[in-house]
């Protein structure tokens, strides 16, 4: 079954490339992705939803004398593919000639196995999947009597077959899996309902945190902030707990994406080779790590993935490139194409040696941020601002819970101000970070 799907994906990609060439494309690339998805959501003792589907998509990039057009279609019938690809090639004539638009010149070697596929996950019994979600619902309620409701407990998995072929002679395919367990307990704090979300994800079933531990952590997060109030307004050290720290890394990825740098949307424009962050800032992008969620044997255009040091001891070493932006900006692809733009491999901040508890203990007066809402980053200027919740720290201890406040700063100052990095890095997403502390940010409460 699985080798059939992979072969079908590869054959379809190759056929699409042939159609594009015969429709007049001077070069073309086709990507076929087939994904079997499973999703069960439980609430209380019932299954709220059970989804099981197969998605199939074909993406084509067609080049005609330096003009580029893209296609995305789910219609893989012979006539459907033919018509859509011909229309794509025709659409390219409306695009400006761009000397940098072309296929890559060198590609990944075949046969790289990053162990991204877990047969045990695929063979898993349907009842066992359903039971994961139901058991999480039971466990969160058993943790604490103040947990009175839930926004749902989930188990999801996916088995994917990805194939790429192009007119430059590259063809490659790989299989991968991923699974996750997550839950959202609702606790009653007087009149106030507090929801927390916690979960675990990985390529393999065995990578997932076990159900009791997920339930314990989710319940703790839902009840920890009982009685939270606004912190004082002022400038304080801010500790970002691991999962929130990862959202800062998401923003940093946007800033080091060569596409954003080329389009004016990065505050890091003109700073390559300069010291931007503190010595504690070493950030790596690595799409070639075995078994990780951000890994793949080749990127979205068939280029080998690699380990790229992006910041080393605070110095911006490089932006992240696909083939197009590498050509345009005079660099080499770092294997970061996601097919239509630039994506991450495993993008992470190098961990330090302290535990989160030690970071807190070393902070006289400050804020521990456990969760943020909003997405206000103005990338051109590097302005960061979020709603937040967590704890106020006094004399190295969690003094009281805080919510309904904001934290703000300029990214340039935040990176320069990272003065302590935790040891708690884990690879449960493509973009991850250990906890870290920024020496000073503006906290706005009352």
């Amino acid at each position: 079954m699985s080798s059939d799907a992979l072969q079908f994906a590869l054959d379809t990609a190759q056929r699409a490339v042939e159609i594009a060439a015969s429709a007049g494309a001077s070069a073309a690339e086709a990507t076929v992705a087939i994904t079997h998805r499973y999703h069960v959501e439980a609430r209380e003792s019932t299954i709220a939803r059970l989804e099981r589907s197969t998605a199939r998509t074909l993406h084509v990039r067609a080049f005609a004398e330096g003009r580029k057009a893209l296609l995305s279609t789910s219609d893989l019938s012979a006539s459907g593919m033919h018509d859509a690809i011909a229309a794509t090639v025709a659409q390219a004539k409306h695009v400006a000639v761009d000397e940098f638009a072309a296929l890559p010149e060198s590609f990944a070697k075949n046969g790289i196995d990053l162990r991204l596929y877990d047969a045990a996950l695929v063979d898993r019994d349907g009842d066992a999947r359903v039971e994961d979600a139901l058991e999480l619902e039971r466990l969160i309620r058993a943790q604490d009597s103040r947990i009175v409701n839930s926004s749902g407990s989930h188990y999801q998995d996916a088995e994917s077959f990805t194939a790429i072929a192009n007119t430059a002679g590259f063809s490659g395919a790989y299989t991968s899996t991923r699974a996750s367990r997550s839950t959202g307990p609702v606790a009653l704090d007087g009149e106030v309902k507090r929801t927390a979300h916690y979960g675990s994800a990985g390529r393999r079933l065995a990578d997932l945190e076990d159900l009791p531990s997920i339930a314990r952590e989710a319940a703790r997060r839902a009840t920890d902030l009982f009685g939270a109030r606004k912190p004082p307004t002022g400038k304080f050290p801010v500790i970002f707990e691991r999962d929130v720290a990862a959202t800062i890394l998401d923003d940093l990825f946007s800033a080091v994406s060569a596409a954003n740098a080329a389009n004016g949307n990065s505050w890091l424009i003109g700073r390559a080779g300069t010291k931007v962050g503190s010595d504690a800032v070493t950030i790596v992008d690595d799409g070639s790590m075995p078994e990780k969620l951000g890994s793949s044997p080749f990127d979205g255009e068939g280029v080998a993935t690699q380990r790229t040091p992006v910041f080393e001891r605070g110095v911006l070493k490089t932006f992240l490139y696909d083939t197009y932006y590498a050509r345009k900006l005079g660099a080499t692809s770092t294997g970061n194409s996601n097919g239509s733009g630039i994506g991450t491999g495993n993008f992470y901040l190098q961990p330090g040696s302290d535990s989160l508890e030690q970071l807190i203990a070393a902070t006289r007066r400050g804020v521990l941020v456990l969760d943020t809402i909003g997405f206000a980053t103005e990338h051109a200027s590097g302005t960061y601002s979020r709603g937040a919740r967590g704890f106020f720290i006094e004399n190295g201890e969690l003094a009281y819970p805080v919510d309904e406040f904001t934290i703000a700063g300029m990214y340039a100052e935040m990176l320069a101000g990272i003065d302590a990095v935790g040891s708690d890095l884990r690879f449960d997403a493509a973009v991850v970070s250990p906890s870290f502390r920024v020496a000073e940010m503006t906290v706005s409460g009352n």
Partner: protein
Amino acid sequence: MSFRLQDGCIHEASHGISMGVGIRVVSGESAGYAYSDDLSPEALFQAADAASLIARTCAAGTTGETGIALERVNAAQNLYTDGESAGADAAKYVALLERADVAARRFDPRVVAVNAHVTDEFQKVWIANSDGRLVYDARPMITLAVQAVASDHKERGSGFAGDGGRTSIAFFDEHSPEQLAAEAARIATVNVEAVAAPAGEMEMIVGSGGGGVLLHEAVGHGLESDFNRRGTSLYSGRVGERVASDLVTIYDDGNLVEERGSVNVDDEGVPGQHKVLVENGILRGYMQDVLNARLMNVESTGSGRRQSFRFLPQPRMCNTYMPNGTSTFESILGSTKRGLYAKSFAGGQVEISKGDFVFMIGEGYLVENGRITAPLKNATIVGNGPDAMTKVVAVGNDSHLARRHYTCGKGGQYVPVGVGMPTVKISSITVGGTHHE
């Protein structure tokens, strides 16, 4: 189909086809779901089998039904101006982008980059259900979006503007791309000159039009019926209670001509409706889809929406707005001692159960002693839904819907929506800038 402009050139053309069938089987509170983008009979049977697993897993129910007689129902209204995506002249789309690029650069020499795209989509939906109802809807959607970046060699700032709706490219004959691009460029130059926003609690003036993001986040999401049926929203069980100052009235309307959130029928085949959510501060009702309405013993309000056949319908907002009050903009500004005037927002988010929300300023100004004194850098505002709504102390007489470019995300599904609002004053809210003495 879509075209993208950067560096003054048409950088990329793209088009896409997404086609398939989604099958939902409902049993009590449970829904089984499967979709297939392979339309062969075998694939459809397989999907139906996967979707109905829920009925076999979960519960007692009637079995043995043998076929349903479908009856075609026509949508009673047509809110859309027909699009022409299929077969439209590509050169017309390209011309829109090129005109926008020129206009943005002409607006101010500090404009250093212009990124723009135009997307024209046509969604054709057939909805059939076991009640025998069969409905068709064909929904156009065009969007032109312009982002400008300005720089004075020291500071950089960006500005965004977008417009369009459930209409055709002819919309831009009346609403010129030059105007839209000039607006993006104007905001970018304002943001170059902007100073650090203040930190702390202060008065806030929420701008008309795009200020409606506040209603969408602070109140709207909390009134979607799935959260209320499950009791996870802070508005659960509070219909008939006071949830806002008596100046606050909020509607959600799926029936507005050409608006992004409008639907002739929703994704369960129910006609779009005008709903009173909050009236003079009193909570009047929730936005319902069919499943939650049945479990709450009420009727669907035509709020069952989905991104595509790949997703289950959810109760969602359509076009959410506040009607006119009686204050003038001048009187609201004049009465503000020290505060923030948020003319437009870049987006927002809410945490449903406690009601804490944020929204992000796209264009904002400091107000001192009744006068606008300085443009402010982007900042996040944080508040609590019912708390902020109780602190609404003035509602302007200038209500209008915002330019049409808003998209709402929920549970991983993105649907187009509209927002609108008059100028509104909130007596106190927390502004998350960096400036603090």
